[in-house]
């Protein structure tokens, strides 16, 4: 099989996964009656408002009852509640897959996005994505950079006190829930010491008008993002160290490294030319997968910091039962993740000549 065929096959598998995710999400919400209850509540709300307005307009009571009934039936038809759930869900799936994500019904979603109600789901996502990148993706990148710089050296010095210290640190922080550390950090550095903010929603203003005063806004964004970034880096650096160390260790024991050592090559040269090169595919996998997962994987942490990113947006959509936003965000999360996986497949073929299917 040629490279093209392999990539095409992978692309098909990934696309299928994407479609399945959207279908599954719609089915979960449809088949459990979740969406019906949500629409029912919305209809009741609108009908009540309509009835109040009619009564204020001094319409005769019998007439009001009749009009309200008609209005209710109209809404039920409009939201498709008279049809079985799959007839409601399927068009929704199709609209989502073709990027017609629709308009959010939730005030809270508009609030997280930082714009007036109602907000288009695609706009909300585009507004929140950069905020998540500023906080979580940057934190992951910092971890990756530090780990790539230090990891190989640890592997080379295994068994020493330094190695033990790093491994203990990895074990300790791997065990630490990042959102719990976040709670502690907010308390210590926010409430107690007052160095960092306690209300992170305020970052919206600086992100939205970034280009009006770039330097001033950048400084403010950094003021808001530093504590979450420090929290994430502290918790995840350990496992980054550990996994890169493990990957490099596997290579260090290979024969060609022994040969290089036997040839008397300097250690630095062996690390950069022989060890790192061979260890790069799994390391890259680690980097890309965690970057791809960083968009969706920090819902709890974002919510603890009340950081107005994709995670908080999703959680707010869940609490306000905003079906369009839930579906749209799930779609986006999966797309980002899948694009990451696909980039990985492509890179693999170039980085590791042994990968030929």
């Amino acid at each position, binding site marked *: 099989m040629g490279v093209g065929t392999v990539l095409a096959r992978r692309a098909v598998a990934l696309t299928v996964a994407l479609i399945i995710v959207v279908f599954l999400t719609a089915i979960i919400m449809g088949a459990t009656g979740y969406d019906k209850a949500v629409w029912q509540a919305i209809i009741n709300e609108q009908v009540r408002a309509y009835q109040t307005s009619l009564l204020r307009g001094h319409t005769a009571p019998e007439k009001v009852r009749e009009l309200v009934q008609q209005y209710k039936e109209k809404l039920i038809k409009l939201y498709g509640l008279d049809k079985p759930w799959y007839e409601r869900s399927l068009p929704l799936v199709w609209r989502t897959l073709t990027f017609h994500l629709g308009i959010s019904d939730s005030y809270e979603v508009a609030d997280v996005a930082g714009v007036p109600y109602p907000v288009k789901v695609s706009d909300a996502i585009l507004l929140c994505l950069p905020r998540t990148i500023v906080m979580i993706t940057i934190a992951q990148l910092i971890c990756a950079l530090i780990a790539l710089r230090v990891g190989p050296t640890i592997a080379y010095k295994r068994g020493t006190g330094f190695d033990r210290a790093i491994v203990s640190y990895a074990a300790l922080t791997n*065990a*630490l829930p990042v959102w719990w550390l976040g*709670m502690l950090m907010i308390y210590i550095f926010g409430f107690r010491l007052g160095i960092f903010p306690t209300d992170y929603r305020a970052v919206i203003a600086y992100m939205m008008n970034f280009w009006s005063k770039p330097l001033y806004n950048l400084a403010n964004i950094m003021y808001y993002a530093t504590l979450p970034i420090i929290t994430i880096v502290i918790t995840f650096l350990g496992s980054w160290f550990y996994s890169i160390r493990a990957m490099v260790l596997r290579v260090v024991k290979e024969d060609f490294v022994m040969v290089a050592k036997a040839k008397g090559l300097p250690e630095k040269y062996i690390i950069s030319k022989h060890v790192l090169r061979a260890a790069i595919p799994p390391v890259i996998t680690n980097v890309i997968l965690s970057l791809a997962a960083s968009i969706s994987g920090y819902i*709890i942490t974002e919510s603890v910091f009340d950081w107005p990113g994709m995670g908080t947006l999703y959680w707010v959509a869940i609490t306000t039962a905003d079906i369009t936003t839930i579906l749209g965000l*799930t779609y986006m999360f999966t797309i980002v*993740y*899948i694009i990451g996986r696909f980039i990985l497949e492509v890179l693999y073929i170039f980085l590791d000549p042994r990968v030929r299917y």
Partner: protein
Amino acid sequence: MSRPHKKSRVGETLINWVKEISSYTSGKVGLALLLIFVVISIYALVTLPPNFKYIWSNPRCWQDYPELAPPAWVRMLGYQRAAHKVVTYDTPSRIRVYGPYRVFIYSTYYDLDVKDYPQDLIIELKDVRVPKVSGRAVPVMLRMYVKRPDGKVIKVIDTTLYFPKNVSVAYTNQSLVISANRKLIVSEVLYKVLNSTSAQLSPAVAVNYVFGKLRLNASKVIVTPLEGTYKVYAELYYPASSGIINPAGFVRLVIVGDCYGLLGTDNIGRDLAQAILYGFPIALMIGFVTAVASTLIGLFAGVISAYYGGLVDEFLQRLIDVMGNIPLLPFLILLVDVTPVEYRLQVIMLVLVVFGWGGLAITVRAMTLSIKEEPYIEAARAIGASNARIILRHIVPQIVPYATATLVFSVPGAILAEAGLSVLGLEHGWPTWGRVLAAARMTGRYDVWWWILPPGILLALTSLTFVLLGMALETIVEPRLRTR
């Protein structure tokens, strides 16, 4: 790789493993921690009531506990926190006669030795005998007093108990809980301590007046704690003609302090130590069930995929592919959110099992592919061993060590997932460490350290235990990682 074991050797193998694990420092620490966790879990299951789940979520059960009280041991560190005192009686301390009444007195002493006030005064009654005079139930007066170190006596409860008609013993199932009457205290303090009618007293802090030195400054009252020994006593007035000698099977006087127990209390007075204790068996259960189930599925899916090959292999590999491409957390949150509260914990575990076996299956498949080609497998097949026998007796035992390491590593996953979802705000009704943290987060009290720290530290310790064990196991099954 070890040779396939006979069943009788399983115990021996386990002992060997434990020996080998404990030859590593990380393994030793991990095993010790695991042992502690298991012992505490068993202790929790034995000592806590079986309906603790409902007790925890019922505020009525926590009425005579202090609210937001730090652990009692902070007093030893010099913190000024009034002690909590509970005295239980099955017979009255003293009986005196007062006109036509027989008065049953329950009394105790309370030492206020710090610059602080208790939160409340409570009397709890159960199995109260109903006095009958000529066949009719008559009401009973209940009064509670505090005699201060300065000799002043303040009435804190003055009420009448009315009983249902046709019973001889009342409050048999649920006890009657009465706390200090704030308005009564204010009027008592005005009249007996301050001798003033113009002073401004606030019923909200009435208990402070009972245990405080009061000073009038214009019409404002300044309160400072009055240290010393207080006598707290309650009186029950029964008609002497009813012939009752012991009025109640259970009477409890509670001086609700400002600190409590081993781990303090939360905002509705729940004893955090109990929830933390109950969290041990639940956490281990969630972690182990999920890890064992997903490891078993991964193990057999991997072996079957490699052993049979063809369509089965293709199907399983594509399935793993698709599952690996689903961002799990948003999916899990949605699924838990649409589930009714009483099934949520099960759904969390189920989703983690369903999505958790793919990684192991891929590795196991690769291992099986090479084992499959070994000559002894061919020999087994040649003498007519069935596929099931070959898989179970010759292939699986060789993969078990690796699968065990994976299992141990994956135990904390479900525990942390449950805690995370709880903290996020998804209720599941069980008192777990995550729920304790969630309650702290919902009330926004990040500053209450005894509420935030213990559950978080325990979550971290649990995962640390399994990470350490896993690391030791990994070194055993993957000799390349050995440092010696």
